[in-house]
């Protein structure tokens, strides 16, 4: 598949803004986690921002996404409210899920965000269902599944490709190959090239540098367009790197290490945000000063969102009574 277009100036700036927002939110959550301010753990998206931003740039509010346990970036890129997300991660009643889901379950159905998911591969079948609904609606909606190289080894991945291709569903499969299945380096748990797997189902498969926001944007543009036109599923393998741990708390309880620091340093030199910034400056789309101003604005947004979260009340313990069932006692 070939990209349908290149980003416009405004689209370039939106891409950078989204990536910066994700980075600044994640850095703040990192700090707040280590300061003991968060009740639960967080799985940070730092280093992978180009994927969520590059894909979601092509989506409308009524398109669906399902995400992973590392889902803050997808939530924000799809237009989710940072205040409501951060309040959720603080376990507050103003959280997007009223404090009932936490970091691993941030969802906003009004924006097509079916939700992050604590089960590796858990979003795959759900996305197929949303894609079926989108096909029945026949309004050009698409359903996008973000999942990792770890989830690509779950059986549902094969099942979903089979059903999606068989029924020509408007399904976009985005595999973020971040190098690790939890604590296991990918090559110790994965045979072959994941990007070869869709081809067995005649699903178009594209491999991109997941730290190159423009490459992701272009690949996603083609994949989303393919689905919108009713041509069926497509697959994008975005190779990136998880610069933080599987779980931010792992440094406190993991018995050993599973990678060299030099590997992290190598990938930090390929930072997707620095890379996009450099390109935009080189192409005279913006200046470094303008990026700085954008960053300060985002830092203010993050600061406001955190202050809002911290000042918010905790949910009433009774709130759970209404949540297991609709209009029925649990």
């Amino acid at each position, binding site marked *: 598949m070939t990209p349908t277009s290149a980003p416009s100036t405004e689209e370039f700036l939106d891409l950078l803004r989204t990536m910066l927002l994700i980075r600044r939110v994640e850095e703040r959550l990192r700090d707040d986690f280590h300061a003991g301010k968060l009740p639960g753990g967080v799985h940070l998206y730092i280093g992978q921002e180009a994927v969520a931003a590059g894909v979601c740039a092509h989506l409308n509010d009524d398109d*669906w996404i*399902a995400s992973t346990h590392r889902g803050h970036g997808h939530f924000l890129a799809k237009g989710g409210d940072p205040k409501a997300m951060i309040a959720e991660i603080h376990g507050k009643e103003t*959280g*997007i*899920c*009223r*404090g*009932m*889901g936490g970091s691993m*379950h941030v*969802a*906003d*159905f*009004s924006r097509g965000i*079916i*939700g992050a*998911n*604590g*089960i590796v591969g*858990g979003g*795959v*079948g*759900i*996305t*197929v*269902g*949303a*894609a*079926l*609904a*989108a096909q*029945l*609606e026949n309004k050009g909606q698409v*359903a996008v599944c973000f999942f990792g190289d770890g989830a690509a080894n779950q*059986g*549902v991945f094969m*099942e*979903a490709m*089979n*059903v999606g291709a*068989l*029924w020509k569903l408007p399904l976009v499969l985005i595999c973020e190959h971040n190098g690790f299945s939890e604590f296991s380096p990918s090559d110790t748990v994965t045979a072959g090239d994941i990007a070869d797997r869709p081809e067995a189902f005649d699903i178009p498969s594209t491999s991109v540098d997941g730290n190159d926001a423009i490459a992701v944007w272009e690949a996603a543009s083609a994949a989303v367009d393919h689905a919108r036109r009713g041509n069926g599923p497509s697959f994008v393998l975005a190779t990136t790197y998880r610069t933080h741990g599987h779980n931010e708390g792992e440094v406190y309880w993991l018995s050993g290490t599973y990678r060299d620091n030099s590997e992290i340093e190598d990938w930090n030199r390929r930072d997707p945000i620095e890379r996009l910034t450099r390109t935009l400056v080189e192409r005279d789309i913006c200046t470094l000063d303008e990026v700085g101003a954008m960053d300060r604005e985002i830092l203010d947004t993050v600061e406001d969102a955190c202050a809002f979260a911290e000042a918010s009340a905790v949910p009433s313990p009774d709130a*759970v009574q*209404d*949540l*297991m*069932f*609709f*209009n*029925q*006692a*649990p």
Partner: protein
Amino acid sequence: MAKKRLIQAINDALTEEMERDERVILFGEDVEISMFGDTVGLLDRFGPDRVRNTPICEATLSGMAVGAAAAGYRVILHMMFSNFIYTGFDAIANQMAKIRLMTGGQIMLPVTVIAGYGGGRSTAAQHSDTPYPALMNLGGINVAVPSTPADAAGLLKTAIRGNNPTFYLEAGGRGGQRGEVPDGDHLMPLGQAAIRRSGGDVTLVSVGAMMRPTLRAARALAADGIEAEVIDCRTLVPLDTETIKASVARTGRLVVVDEARDRCSAASHIAAVIAEESFHDLRAPVRRVTVPNIAMPYAPNVEKPLLPNPERIAEAAATLVQA
């Protein structure tokens, strides 16, 4: 009133609900040819958009039910044999049962999952389970176990129109049983047990298809001068504990008949509720007539005696009354 076979009552209810609401969709393995006969004719009538044969991929099918319902459809998922629920259990236990709570109540999940359950026909260990105890324990899942054509129709219509995930379990091999079904739009609310027979000496609570052997046991007991009250649960979640408690308050004795394996069975739950909440009404210990903690064997002479039968039920009841 019209006399119908149980499977016909289900087929009619599905047809009526799909006719009534075009956002009801149905998918599953072989729903076109319909192994049990419950979905026969639906594909021809409603077309391949709304009625779809699927590949055999339960892990994805249960996830799809969640996704399509979250995206605004009323989903009926046919899982054929209820053992296949285990194959699709991840999205049932981790998504379907929890997504409403996890997302702070942002969505309703109108999903009806149909599957045939139970042994007694030499279908062997992997086609004869009764997975409702596991489903009952998940939390956000309703469980219906209809035993008559009227309830089969009424509970299915309620499940489809409802806004919560409901497992609608058909007792395997009982599709030919006939009974009266009320004319018109017959709905049976979830959580209302039926008193199938009145009696003052002992309460016999039956789960699903255990209703018939339980009634036969009650008739045998009557011949011996023991009047049993027979209560058919109809649904296990929600469970009509009030009707059971009120009966136990009259009889002072309880036998629960359940074709699930004994440990953590529906019978165990009902026994625990009565032990906690009706202890002072009891004149004898609660008895459970269930299947031993054994997988269903194939050979009929080994399988049959494992299932509750009228003799075992009557014996358990008589022991309590004579105690």
